[in-house]
């Protein structure tokens, strides 16, 4: 009489695990493109190499802004490509929700860049970029795969580290964040979440 009882329990557990997995897969839908993330990361690594050389402060800012524009374009194209491949409209609920939450912190970052740059504190500028980017990802990823908010949190941690580390490390932490984290999480998203 023990066997049927166990199989009923196993069946219930199996059902619960199926429900959990279906919910995870559904909430794991992310328009965030892994391949695009890798491309963005490589762009940032290139920028870090250039910016850490003997360049003026203005050139340093220009390099990082140019890298942001290139990375943004790569991310945008990759996102559209991924959405098309998944036959999902970016204007549908998940994509719209992501964009509406993701954009405001980035906008704040763009607005504050010049005033902070004019203070001459480039370390603070680097920390602000990392922190606001982390906030943008966290805000936009409330319905994304767990890997996306994890990436946002990692950017926040790195932003805090940048605030307290020696000023000379700013390109290193920017490279670790916009380069390393993008490549690492981009790879994870690419492998696990459909490109």
């Amino acid at each position, binding site marked *: *009489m*023990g066997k*049927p*009882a*166990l199989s*009923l*329990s196993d069946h*219930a*557990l199996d*059902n*619960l695990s*199926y*429900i*959990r997995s*279906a*919910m*995870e*897969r*559904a*909430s794991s*839908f992310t328009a965030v493109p892994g391949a695009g993330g890798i491309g963005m990361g490589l762009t940032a690594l290139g920028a870090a190499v250039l910016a850490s050389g003997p360049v003026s402060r203005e050139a340093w800012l220009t390099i990082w802004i140019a890298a942001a524009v290139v990375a943004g374009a790569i991310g945008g194209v990759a996102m559209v490509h991924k959405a098309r491949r*998944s*036959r*999902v*409209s970016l204007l*549908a*609920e*998940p994509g719209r929700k992501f964009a509406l939450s993701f954009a405001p912190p980035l906008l704040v970052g763009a607005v504050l860049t010049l005033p902070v740059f004019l203070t001459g504190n480039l370390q603070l500028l680097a920390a602000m970029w990392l922190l606001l980017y982390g906030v943008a990802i966290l805000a936009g990823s409330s*319905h994304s795969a767990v890997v996306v908010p994890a990436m946002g949190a990692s950017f926040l941690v790195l932003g805090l580290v940048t605030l307290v580390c020696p000023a000379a490390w700013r390109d290193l932490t920017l490279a670790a964040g916009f380069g390393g984290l993008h490549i690492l999480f981009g790879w994870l998203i690419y492998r696990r979440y459909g490109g």
Partner: protein
Amino acid sequence: MARSNAARNLAPGSQDVKLASVRKDIPRLDRLIHERLRLGIVSALAASRVLTFSELKHLLDTTDGNLSVHARKLEEAGYIECAKAFEGRIPRSTYSLTSAGRRALERYLEHMEALVRAMKEPE
């Protein structure tokens, strides 16, 4: 020996008593969402508010025919809603969970959890 086994099986909390109590509840199980694919549709829609037909098909790894049959059954029961629209010239169906569907899933989850708990309680 036979008598002592029988006595143990009838003791409160024994596997047989638990099994009998669980089996008594089985007719109350929502058969509509007990079916695998329908359970998957309802669960996916509970996690992601709106999903297109293609997304559901991809998520649940099923065929067009199978998905439409089961989605229609859930729709007829009032558990999910389907909105049809055109994106350019391509028809697009989006599904969402109704409050009746969410309650049904909650009841089903409670039922499954109760079943697991009943089976795991020490004798």
